[in-house]
């Protein structure tokens, strides 16, 4: 009974956090993009335009939900939900603080990757069900991209697992009490961030929704709340990737003076900021360049990195 109550409570907290977090992240994205382009961004609604995204979300709630002609209604309805729900699951194992983790599983890292691997099924379903050639192209690209970039993502985090000797995220954080792993594994960190960018369909890897070629990619036909859910899931995905990067490489909740969760959130939002900064700096890759980059650069590099890590660990043990 107690356990059930705990699960329901944490689910409510997570959903509330996800909604507020994505509103804030959209605001941050607008501000960052505006400042990079020498604009000002949202200014008037709320404190520095902080409520602007809230107003936009309200507007989105009032929009009509449309079923396109000849679409696959069941899949079309399910797709946004399927792309959003797995992201919530990933919150289960993120160690926000020393004891601030919903369920500290011993396969935590694998669970995050399993859930995040599910979310592109929703995207592909959206592309398929919309009965629109642009959506279908976007969905197919998304599948190709996610399959390719899942491998370097896993391989680069394998280094960390080898060093911490555990899949449990809180153990990994504990192993970084003195030295964050980014100093020991800079190459793995870069590979991880790059593939996480690709996994969450962010520029420069946003070919599934490339607006200059595919209108809006897989969510071309979506409107109103369903479009909003895709949006929220994308931003939550970015946040989850940053959280995992924080836990794996940046020392998680370790830091002087402030309490653990404050350090964790600060580091996570810094990674989110870097992700946005990359988005507004780099142009989009071509689809073939993208796949080439994954298979010819990232995967060999991460394999090389694993061999080096294994050698170093063995030599240090003796």
């Amino acid at each position, binding site marked *: 009974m107690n356990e059930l109550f705990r699960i329901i409570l944490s689910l409510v907290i997570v959903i509330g956090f996800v909604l507020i977090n994505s509103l804030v992240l959209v605001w941050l994205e607008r501000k960052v993009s505006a400042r990079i382009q*020498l*604009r000002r961004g949202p200014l008037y609604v709320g404190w520095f335009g902080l409520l602007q995204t809230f107003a936009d979300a309200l507007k989105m709630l009032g929009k009509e939900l449309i079923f396109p002609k000849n679409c696959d209604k069941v899949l079309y309805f399910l797709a946004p939900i399927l792309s959003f729900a797995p992201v919530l699951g990933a919150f289960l194992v993120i160690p926000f603080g020393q004891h601030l983790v919903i369920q500290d599983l011993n396969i935590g890292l694998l669970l995050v990757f399993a859930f995040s691997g599910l979310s592109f099924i929703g995207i592909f379903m959206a592309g398929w069900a919309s009965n629109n050639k642009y959506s279908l192209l976007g969905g197919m690209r998304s599948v190709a991209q996610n399959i390719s970039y899942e491998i370097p993502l896993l391989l680069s985090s394998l280094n960390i697992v080898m060093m911490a000797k555990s899949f449990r995220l809180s153990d990994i954080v504990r192993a970084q009490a003195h030295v964050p792993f980014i100093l020991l594994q800079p190459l793995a960190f870069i590979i991880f961030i790059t593939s996480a960018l690709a996994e969450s369909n962010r520029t420069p890897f946003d070919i599934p929704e490339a607006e200059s070629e595919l209108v809006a990619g897989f969510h071309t036909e979506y409107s109103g709340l369903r479009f909003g859910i895709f949006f929220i899931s994308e931003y939550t995905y970015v946040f989850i990737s940053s959280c995992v990067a924080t836990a794996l490489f940046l020392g998680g909740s370790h830091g002087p003076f402030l309490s653990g969760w404050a350090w964790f959130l600060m580091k996570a939002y810094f990674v989110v900021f870097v992700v946005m*900064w990359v988005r507004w700096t780099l142009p989009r890759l071509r689809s073939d360049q993208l796949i080439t980059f994954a298979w010819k650069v990232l995967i060999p590099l991460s394999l090389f990195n694993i061999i080096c890590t294994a050698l170093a660990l063995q030599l240090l043990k003796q």
Partner: protein
Amino acid sequence: MSYITNIFTGFWSVLAGMVVTLKYMFRKPVTEVYPRVKKPMFPRFKGPTSFVVDEKTGDHRCISCELCVKICPSLCITLEKERGEDKKFHLKEYKVDYTLCSLCSLCIEVCPTDALTHAKDYEIPALSQSEMINDFLKPFREKQKTSQPVAP
């Protein structure tokens, strides 16, 4: 070998680009928050045409020669005049239809007394076409009313 140099140059160019955008992030924005902050217009800004107020008399300088009416390519100036007792023309009405005016400045150049100029005003939207027909004499009439009170 070119494979490795490729990776390094690619990574280096990404870093260089990121540094450029980071520098831009701390520059002052170039946009104005327009309705709240208004910029003074440039000295040669060509706003809507209007009468020059003469510094000496405080009146307009128009002598009703109708040169501007004749030269206007858009036919947007309507002028009415009457001959006064001193055998001189007096301006009764001078209206310009801004829905037609192309701001070509021909009327300003042709005027023998330099009575016309471009105003610096740039907020002249209107809700109907009739509001866009501007009566040039209106400010002068109002001024007369305030300066010469009607005798009882």
